[in-house]
């Protein structure tokens, strides 16, 4: 018998190592006594494996020549049959794909789950949930809606199949976690029953991300910071066009962009083309500690995204006492109230962005009050301990 209240949670459909916000959640869950099994093809580090209540379920990622894969699947099937013949039969009957080869690949990815039992299964990503639909019938399941997979992918004509996948997983899930009310409303278009939806917003640790006291405001330079992958969704081209306008107004702006990604050339080209070389610094990927230092030295956090769930990067900036200028996308307005913690402007509108930044530059007092409001907002509504508690409650509720 398992001890009362103990919950065995499987996390599936993710790539290890996880994003920082997922890593923080997993640590919090194990600390709260939830038994966490992570199914991934990459092995977690020893540090993770040494955590109490944490275990790893290795899954194979299909690679190598077909003959070898077929052989591997055969061996894995035999082993799975020893664990549970019924289970193996169940998973084999659920393979549905266009040809025998993809069915074999599907089976290969599900075999590790044969013969195990969990109280709850959690999919941190919609795509991961769609790839593991048979698991939904093994235990009550929870799916997270975080951003692009609900907001963007379904509109791509080449990925139209994701709509059906979203519908099916929403119908089968016991609960659906949404990072904002905005994404919950978006997900309704794909059949999400609002009664199943649980909004738990992202969170940060305000003890780690905090302002540096006594740092004087640098009157000679307006230090703007942003963090995020260099991808189209972040709308950097519009950000740089806004920055150009700011510089043309004679404001001594300096922009630090932290992050790396496939659109690095695009960013570099735009910086050169708009003659912003001397005012933009592209730092690449940075360690969280370095990110914190950069945030603490900045005057304002800028987000130009075209789509978001709720940006963790913005929350980190707010926790460091920075006023925020953000585009009005996804759930951003649920974290930043226009005129209180910063300014919320239309997406794809460099002029509005420049206007909001100029407002903050010309009013140092505003910068301070908005920065303070931002930190206060994080402490009241976006604290990591609150978020983990909400997840623990969600998983326990679903398990029972």
């Amino acid at each position, binding site marked *: 018998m398992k001890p009362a209240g103990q919950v065995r949670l499987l996390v599936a459909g993710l790539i290890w190592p996880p994003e920082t916000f997922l890593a923080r959640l997993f640590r919090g869950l194990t600390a709260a006594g939830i038994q966490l099994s992570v199914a991934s093809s990459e092995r977690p580090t020893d540090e993770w494996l040494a955590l109490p209540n944490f275990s790893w379920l290795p899954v194979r990622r299909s690679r190598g020549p077909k003959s070898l894969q077929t052989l591997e699947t055969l061996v894995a099937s035999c082993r799975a049959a020893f664990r549970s013949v019924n289970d193996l039969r169940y998973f084999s009957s659920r393979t549905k794909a266009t040809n025998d080869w993809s069915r074999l690949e599907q089976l290969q990815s599900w075999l590790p789950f044969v013969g195990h039992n969990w109280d709850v299964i959690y999919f941190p990503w919609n795509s991961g949930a769609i790839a593991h639909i048979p698991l939904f019938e093994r235990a009550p399941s929870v799916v997270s809606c975080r951003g692009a997979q609900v907001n963007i992918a379904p509109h791509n004509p080449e990925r139209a199949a994701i709509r059906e996948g979203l519908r099916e997983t929403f119908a089968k899930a016991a609960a659906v976690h949404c990072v904002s009310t905005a994404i919950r409303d978006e997900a309704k278009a794909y059949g999400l029953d609002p009664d199943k939806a649980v909004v738990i917003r992202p969170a940060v640790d305000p003890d780690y991300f905090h302002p540096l006291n006594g740092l004087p405001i640098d009157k000679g330079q307006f230090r703007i910071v942003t963090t995020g992958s260099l991808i189209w969704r972040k709308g950097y081209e519009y950000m740089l066009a806004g920055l150009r306008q700011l510089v043309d107004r004679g404001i001594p702006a300096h922009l630090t962009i932290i992050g790396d990604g496939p659109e690095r050339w*695009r960013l570099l080209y735009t910086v050169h083309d708009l003659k912003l070389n001397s005012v933009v610094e592209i730092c690449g990927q940075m360690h969280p500690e370095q990110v914190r230092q950069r945030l603490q030295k900045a005057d304002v956090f800028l987000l130009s995204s075209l789509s978001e769930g709720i940006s963790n990067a913005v929350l980190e900036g707010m926790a460091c006492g920075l006023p925020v200028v953000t585009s009005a996308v996804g759930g951003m307005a649920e974290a930043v109230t226009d005129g209180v913690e910063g300014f919320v402007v239309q997406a794809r509108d460099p002029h509005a962005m420049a206007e909001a930044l100029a407002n903050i530059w010309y009013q140092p007092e505003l910068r301070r009050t908005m920065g303070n409001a931002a930190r206060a907002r994080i402490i009241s509504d976006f604290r990591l301990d609150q978020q983990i508690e909400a997840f623990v409650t969600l998983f326990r509720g679903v398990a029972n």
Partner: protein
Amino acid sequence: MRLVIVVPNFPQLSETFIISKFAGLVDVGWDAHIVCQQAALADWEQYRLLAARPELKHRIHQRWPHQPRLIAVLLWLPAFIITFIRAPGLTWRYWREGWRLLGAKTVGQFYLDAVIIGLAPDIVHFEFGALAVGQTRLKKMLGCYLSVSFRGYDLNYVGLDDPDFYGEVWRTVDAIHVLGNDLWQRALRRGCPPDLPHACIPPAIDIQFFMRDDLEPQEEPVDAERPLRILSVGRLEWKRGYEYALTAVRLVKERGIPFEYRIIGSGRFLEALAFARHEMGLEEHVHFLGGQPQSVIVEAMKWADVFLHPAVSEGFSNAVLEAQAMELPVVCTDSDGLVENVADELSGFIVPRRDPDLLAARLIQLAGDRQLRRRMGLEGRARVAHGFRIENQPAAFDQFFRGMVTTRAR
């Protein structure tokens, strides 16, 4: 003389200019060959310039495969034997010079270069600037001439964070070809010595193929029954600036002007554009038609009233030349070579890049003035017929390569 043209893949729908250049050089007497990573010979018949010329097939050479690495290990010895039989002297020279320059790395490099060595080229020509980076040692190792074509992205943004990205290229190559004066200026800004032999040879098209055969085109008025037909052709990439085009047509919509916008081309940026289309509520008005062969493009150009090219970075743009040859007025940006391509106010309108308001204003102007559309269309046709004819191109490249081998040492 034997000329080896190095390209990533061949043939490609979006790179038909390479086909015409290659075929043209063969026609004027060059022993031209193509070396590529992926040769799609099964698609040969789809290409108008190739379909009638099966004899060119033996001039296309695919490099030895190197992914996964195990394949390369297995095929190394056969690659060596075949190359040695084809060009024993040059293989010896490659190893001798290679060992001096690269040491043990020659073993791996030899496999990657084997096809080029086996062809024993007099000239190795890289069809894009970025392909030449790291390959300039071939000049010494093969004792050949080396030349490069710069076509846009290579000078516009590749390696922009490294001031010496093309340093070795400038120091080694015998001549470069650029599509226009703007690119030559960019090359100079990126460190190219002013005295490096160079030729500006703009793209050229077949005006017999890109020709209207319908009677009295573009005479229809624009109204609810007959919306303004806008067309763009080009791969779906960030540098084409399609997001600004979508913002612009949304402004056209807000002005109550009926329109249909078709975009021909495929690419990874489809997701960003499909999302923007959804956000702006343009699903009914904007259609992504995917990549299409030239015959379909010609039909689409007959359909259209206006050709829109919103690029934020562009080498020269063959599509804009084709549109002008098809008597379409062009609305484009001032990106790089486009200002040499289109005659502003004559064959089209040029507006500053990243400015959807101005793009929209020109579209609205053209929507309301069919005489202007007709006049600009005819002007465009005359412009292409005068300066960008495919018939003149082989002679220009012939001169480029001849000039190089007579003035430079191997």
